[in-house]
């Protein structure tokens, strides 16, 4: 059992980091409908920045690694910078990728960004040491804590889970705020949302930057734990492990994705380590990726909302008789009656009896209000 403590504590750390990633993606895709196919690069930049600001200035003499932004900053500054770096890169990419273009265009542009970023960082050694990546990143407070590696891993795992708890509370609060309702409004009924004064591009950019910050933070946490970071860790396909977890767990449901993360990156990707080797090296990997792809397609086909779907916040006719959207402008909030909010009303079952997806947003058909009132 002794040796298992390393393995299990590492899995707990990975679980926490994947959770952060999933909440970030869920915020963007589940709540705002932004298909972020370049998610992994925001985690990557967080990891790179958290590394270079503790590796010291790049001296160039013992040039086994070269990098930008070399510094010696005390913990936890690197983590904060990692989050900021994720946010900053998101802002830059979001500004052009999230303009009012078709959402499938947006997704394609994101994918291109992810592929090209990987190519450039691998090829240009002056950025972050090319395909060898950065190594020798010190573990934070290792000297100050002065404990065995095993204990350190558990302390770190606890720290990551504590960060998860904080992020969860923040994300849940935001999702339930008027801002969160606005996000859902632009996701489901963009034209209607515009007509009540919401700015979809700005809202998407905001959620994109917030998600980027969480992704950057997760990257910083990861790299401080493993002590190294290279392009091998952020291939474009890595994004889809998290995407699949969100789809499996429940789009737009921050608790559902906890289950999704447990099932996909932890259980499904760790189990093959215990299989006897077969075929040539890499065959199991390839099969894993094919199954991820298949799971993802299946998720889109049978349960677009995941195993644990989003709770529907249902608007009913207000006192004035007007039909209100759940994501309306502040003036409407007083007239909204929220149900299915931990009050025991089995909304999930009721929602499930109704046709699953909202009407195609791209077709922008009318009759959105009728779907809403149907529920209540």
């Amino acid at each position: 059992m002794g040796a298992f403590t390393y393995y299990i504590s590492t899995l707990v750390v990975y679980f926490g980091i994947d959770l952060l990633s999933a909440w970030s993606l869920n915020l963007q895709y589940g709540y705002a409908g932004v298909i972020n196919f370049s998610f992994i690069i925001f985690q990557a930049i967080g990891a790179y920045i958290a590394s270079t600001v503790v590796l010291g200035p790049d001296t160039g003499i013992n040039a086994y690694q070269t990098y930008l932004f070399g510094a010696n900053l005390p913990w936890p500054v690197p983590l904060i910078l990692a989050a900021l770096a994720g946010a900053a890169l998101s802002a830059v990419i979001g500004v052009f990728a999230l303009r009012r273009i078709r959402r499938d265009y947006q997704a394609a542009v994101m994918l291109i960004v992810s592929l090209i970023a990987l190519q450039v960082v691998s090829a240009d050694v002056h950025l972050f040491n090319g395909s060898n990546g950065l190594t020798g990143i010190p573990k934070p407070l290792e000297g100050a804590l002065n404990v065995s590696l095993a204990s350190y891993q558990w302390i770190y795992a606890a720290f990551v889970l504590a960060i998860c708890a904080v992020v969860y509370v923040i994300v849940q609060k935001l999702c339930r705020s008027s801002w969160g309702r606005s996000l859902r409004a632009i996701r489901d009924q963009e034209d209607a949302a515009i007509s009540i004064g919401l700015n979809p591009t700005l809202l998407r950019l905001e959620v994109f930057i917030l998600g980027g910050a969480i992704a950057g933070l997760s990257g910083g946490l990861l790299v401080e734990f493993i002590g190294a970071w290279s392009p091998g860790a952020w291939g474009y396909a890595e994004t889809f492990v998290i995407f699949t977890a969100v789809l499996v767990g429940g789009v737009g449901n921050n608790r559902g994705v906890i289950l999704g993360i447990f099932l996909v990156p932890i259980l499904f990707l760790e189990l093959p380590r215990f299989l006897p080797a077969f075929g040539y090296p890499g065959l199991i990997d390839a099969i894993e990726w094919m199954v991820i792809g298949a799971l993802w397609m299946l998720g889109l086909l049978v349960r677009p909302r995941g195993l644990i779907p989003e709770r529907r916040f249902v608007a009913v006719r207000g006192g004035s008789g007007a039909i209100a959207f759940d994501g309306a402008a502040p003036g409407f909030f007083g007239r909204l009656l929220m149900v299915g909010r931990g009050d025991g009303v089995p909304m999930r079952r009721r929602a499930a009896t109704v046709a699953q997806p909202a009407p195609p947003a791209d077709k922008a058909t009318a009759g959105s209000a009728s779907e809403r009132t149907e529920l209540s």
Partner: protein
Amino acid sequence: MRAKRSAAVGLALAAGIGLAACGTSNVSSTGTGSSSAKGPIVEGAVIAYTGTNAFEGGVTDSGVYPAMYEINKAGGILGHQLNIETVDTRGDPADALPAAQKLLATTSNLVGITGAGTTSGPTLIPLFNSNKMVVMSSAGEARYDRSAYQYFWRLVPPDPANGEAMALWAQKHGFTRIAAVFGTDSGSQGDLPGVLQGISKIHAKLVANVSLTPDQPSYRPEVEQVLAAHPQVIMTESDGATAATFFGEMKQLGQLVPIYGTQGTVTNSWLNPVRGAIGASNFQKYYTAIVGGTPKPSPALQAFVQGVKAESSKVPSPASQWFGNPYAQAFYDGVIVQALAMQAAKSTSPSVYNNYIMKVTAPGPGKEKVYTFAQGKAALAAGKQIQYMGASGPVLFDKYHNSFGNEAAESLSANGTPTVLGIITERAIEKLG
């Protein structure tokens, strides 16, 4: 909510522990000479078998499987058969960490590690060290020249040594205008700084320093750049496809010049495409490989070659390409050294036999020189002190557990058989630094 999350974590823990119960291993072994009732012991090969560093896996297998064959043929270590368990790091530290931890957790009869290469070494070596697990590392980083890890050992020279030897070889031929042409892949970039250091130390002129991004359809701009600089020699490493395109276009657009390949180029996946691209006679004429080790025929080298042949199904074919491979020889020697240390310590426990590794390798008065595991085992049984002379030459660890060794310049025939053109001694390389 809180209850739910901790339940999920608990579930993760439970599943992890549950997994242990059904843990099986990617173990393989040869059945030769099995005569003991004692259970087998396991050497872990923890290295990239897939991803951009996948070449590391092939070269590691080509060292550890022949060693396993040699050891088991001689009756095993203290009556235990030796098995190899391969663990794929995918060249990604984030993957390497749980993979290595799972190996440690589920393999109670693990006695040593070969591997922990360039990208994952820095993450894995502290882990193995704190688990008191002997690791014969292939991480070339110069920072391990002064390693303080008690359980870390390195049989391959640090990355800069190879590059400095190339520079010395160029100096010997009176070349003063040198071009560096390196791929942007991780292996090549690891060797580039050593080459640049070497060039600056011999005060030669670096007339062009070109990076090749792999997988491009053409490298003509880069070829033009090199040709325009008129180098007398090109020092190079990249993947085979990239090199074939580059040198093929160089032949098409101008004139070839002598090509010095790092030891990263001495595999069929590099040699064959390049030979095809520039023609066999040009290849023979222009290409020189600078490799580590002292490939002098010795009983140890014979035993290694015999082992590669016997385990040819386990190594990337054709097996003959590994006969002269310095890395494969070094990994072979590493496993044999561990096995002899176990014999000497009369224990397979890493924390015990770790202290005997020096004792079976260091030279000394009255020590018997042994070239194979069987010889060493017999000599130890007869109560003698031994010094192991490896396939890559004598294994001389310094106090930081590093063994550097000489470098050799070779030309390679069409079937990969090396002809030694000259030796660049460890002393000469040290003098340069």
